[in-house]
């Protein structure tokens, strides 16, 4: 046990926790839904406590306090004044916990640096999933204040917060999406289709995580680690590292999201989409409608709109965007690289909105709809995202700058000697173009770019898991691609490649599952577990 997290991609989760939880859940459902729900809460708390049992107290206290405030806050039963103060109290409680566990050390470190003082403050262990359950419960309190919540029992509320498929790394679910499903009697009965669809989606997610994300990670991690030592990184090396990381994060998050949807579906529960082919986006605004969808929704509904959104003029709109994205960056981690990443995305969004304003003003719609511009827009969006990921991944600002300098060719352009010797006379031509040759056989170089070449079409040309499975309504909601904002959305593959109950799909998905399980021998954490 100890500090080891129960990962979806672990033997203990796949072969013990999930099957046992499932069997006992449906066994207990014979004695009534409350017993089955109670079991799911216990199992979810066990799942959480596997990491560090001491922190179970924290999540339980957090749930009790929020539930009680949520009950008291209803303005139909309270004066608006009292309800408002209860809401403020609840938000302070939640943000206070988050501030203490997640940001106190970072804050004190920076105060110390600014004042030239030293504060002896211990590194506080970040409780698992605190960023997720905090936001989920803040949304619940705000909705309770607005009179949008119903009278829920504590057991149901506890399941809404702790339901294990979404507990650790999202999606940040909304009470109105989850609680009614827990109360549906049809979900308490085992259904063969739920098992099949849940299992297949879980298998696809497992494959994405263990084979694709962890596979390409081998070519991203060493580059960032080398940059951290202060070493100069060449042009191809740094691009290879940054692009590999962009795919690592993509398949890590996509894989996790699929596994969460698949695991929930086994219990008859559909959780909201959190990931929808974000690299197909042709503008940054669309990217954020596809990447960590439920976080974007939370930030929009509970930060951007309350700040005034776009209702108070352009200047306010732009500053609201910046504030929202800065907070989004800070939510991901207490560090300057995350703040810079958030600021970059805030800036991207401002530029994006300003561009649309220019297009409208100058009537550039025809140009904007041209194939050339559509392709360029996608490229700009994708490269901007990759640039942001460099800050997101780097341990510190200096490391990020080393990678970025490499990407801009500041450290020269070179290829490994092992490749150069196979190029014969062409190596001399490359040399006249200023391309140098570095030590090494070049297998790392070749594999890096082979992975990138292999994964690029996978993320751009193929339907995602939800699209493959759309006939079976895998998630709570459905997102339709619009060709104006999404690349290759109308292609034949995108429209026709769909899951069916056929031999070939059975064989294909069995192979994915086998590969996914076989890749478990090198277990690595999901990247979003750290947030």
């Amino acid at each position, binding site marked *: 046990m100890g500090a080891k997290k129960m990962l979806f991609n672990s033997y203990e989760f796949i072969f013990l926790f999930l099957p046992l939880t499932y069997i006992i859940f449906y066994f207990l459902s014979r004695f009534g839904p409350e017993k089955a729900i109670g079991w799911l809460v216990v199992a979810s708390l066990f799942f959480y406590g596997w990491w560090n049992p001491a922190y179970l107290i924290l999540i339980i206290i957090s749930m009790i306090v929020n539930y009680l405030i949520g009950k008291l806050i209803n303005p139909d039963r309270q004066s608006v004044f009292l309800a408002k103060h209860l809401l403020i109290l609840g938000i302070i409680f939640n943000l206070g916990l988050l501030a203490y566990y997640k940001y106190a050390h970072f804050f004190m470190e920076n105060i110390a640096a600014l004042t030239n003082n030293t504060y002896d403050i211990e590194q506080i262990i970040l409780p698992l999933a605190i960023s997720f359950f905090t936001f989920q419960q803040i949304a619940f309190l705000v909705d309770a204040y607005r009179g949008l919540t119903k009278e829920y029992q504590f057991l149901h509320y506890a399941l809404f917060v702790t339901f294990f498929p979404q507990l650790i790394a999202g999606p940040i679910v909304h009470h109105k999406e989850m609680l009614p499903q827990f109360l549906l009697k049809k979900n308490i009965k085992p259904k063969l289709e739920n098992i099949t669809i849940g299992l297949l989606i879980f298998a696809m997610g497992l494959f994405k995580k263990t084979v694709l994300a962890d596979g390409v990670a081998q070519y991203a991690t060493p580059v960032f680690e080398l940059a951290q030592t202060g070493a100069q990184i060449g042009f191809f090396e740094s691009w290879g590292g940054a692009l590999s990381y962009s795919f690592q994060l993509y398949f890590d998050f996509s894989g996790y999201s699929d596994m969460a949807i698949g695991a929930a579906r086994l219990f008859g529960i559909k959780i909201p989409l959190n990931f929808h082919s974000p690299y197909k986006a042709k503008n940054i605004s669309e990217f954020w409608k596809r990447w960590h969808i439920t976080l974007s929704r939370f930030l929009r509904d509970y930060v951007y709109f309350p700040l005034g959104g776009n209702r108070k003029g352009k200047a306010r709109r732009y500053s609201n965007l910046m504030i929202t994205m800065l907070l989004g960056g800070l939510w991901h981690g207490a560090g300057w690289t995350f703040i810079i990443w958030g600021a970059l995305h805030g800036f991207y969004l401002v530029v994006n909105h300003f561009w649309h304003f220019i297009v409208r003003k100058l009537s550039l719609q025809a140009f904007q709809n041209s194939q050339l511009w559509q392709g360029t827009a996608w490229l700009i969006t994708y490269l901007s995202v990759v640039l942001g990921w460099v800050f997101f991944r780097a341990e510190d600002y200096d490391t990020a700058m080393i990678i970025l300098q490499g990407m801009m060719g500041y450290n020269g352009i070179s290829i490994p000697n092992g490749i150069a010797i196979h190029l014969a006379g062409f190596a001399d031509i490359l040399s006249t173009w200023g391309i140098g040759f570095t030590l090494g056989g070049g297998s790392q170089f070749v594999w890096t770019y082979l992975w990138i070449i292999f994964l690029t079409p996978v993320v751009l040309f193929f339907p995602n898991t939800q699209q493959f499975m759309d006939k079976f309504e895998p998630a709570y909601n459905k997102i339709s691609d619009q060709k104006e904002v999404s690349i290759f959305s109308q292609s034949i593959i995108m429209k026709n490649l769909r899951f069916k109950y056929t031999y070939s799909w059975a064989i294909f998905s069995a192979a994915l599952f086998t590969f996914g399980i076989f890749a*478990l021998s*090198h277990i690595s954490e999901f990247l979003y577990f750290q947030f």
Partner: protein
Amino acid sequence: MKTKKFLIIWVIFTGIFFTSAISVNYFTDPYRLYDTYKATNINAIKPVAGTHSRQSKIYAARKKNPDVLVVGNSRPELGIDPQHEFFQQNNLKTYNMGIPGSSLKMQYGYALDLIRDQNIKTIFIGIDFADYMNHPDRISDPFQWPPKVQEFDNRKKYNWDGSENPAFHSQYLKDLYLPLISLGTLKDSIFTLINQKETAKNLTEHGFNTQNNIAHASKTEGIRILFNQKNKEMTARFNKTEWQTFTTGYQWSGEFETLNFLLKQLRSRNIKTYLFINPYHAHYLKIMEMANLEKPFQDWKRKLVDLTHSPDNNDLIELWDFSILDDFQSERILDQDRKTLKWFWEPAHYRKELGDIMIWNMMGPDEKKNIPSFGKKLTPATVETILQHDRIKLRLYSKNNPEEIKYLKQFTQTSVKNKP
């Protein structure tokens, strides 16, 4: 198709894929974990087994029940051939347990584990100064015993104090059976099956790493490329800090403590021990000298003489020094083209051909074979003279090879800037 039928087909195919992959991994045995049947041109050569020697070698050595055990890091693993003529003539089963990049705790801990319940008669321990270098900031107590348990200790049947290690059995199962359901193993199995060629490296069933791929690389890329790479790495490493032989504040270190413990155990079991300092190419020695490590290197040798010549030694332990500059180590690099050196793969790793000569010299050369003399036996009586001659030889090398020295200085100039 109905959902139920689909699910049944899915389960059947999952079963078929699992069984097939496990079978391929087992029969190919890419890491030499299962000792399965070896078919020429199919799975006899194990090109990736060397990457898993930490996981496989201690178990393989135990299975072989050898008479002679070779211990150390990658240098003896690549240089000391367990199929050496001497061992064969004398019918001595030999296993090379050299483990690349291993710490002394692993090398000596694993050796100790084997001598506790195997009938080992002779042990060769290849030692490296680099494994004994202490960072000046290191403040741990060198006398702390037993050492802190690390993950690799789980592979030992016995703890340092000789008691049974309860973690051994679960680790053994994990090491042996998890690779069967591993995608990495499947990839390596396929790599093994399609790389049954002479130029592929191979970890033999006796634990020897043939490094045929280095020979291939030397011939295609040129030996200079390998030397460039290694010289650069070594210069950076040796100049990283003011390395010292002992832990700060002591005339002793945790590494000496571990070696001393092993030597005591070997003495108490009457095991003939050849402790030998690995040979290095002149480039390696000169880079050490340029990093001001000549004196710590010699002090280290003096300490080894003290350790191996305690009053209860009874000639059971011999200390040999093959790092003394000789013609074998002085092959010129700058005029080499695309071919291998005769005695070295690169500056830090010697070839089997040199290892063969070392074994003959330690065991007493066969007069019929006209084996050249190489290496010196270090004793309290000889050590100072030998070290003094060595210093002179190093100076002479610089004088006679100005071009090679100039080439080496280019690495030092960039690295020394970073030295604190």
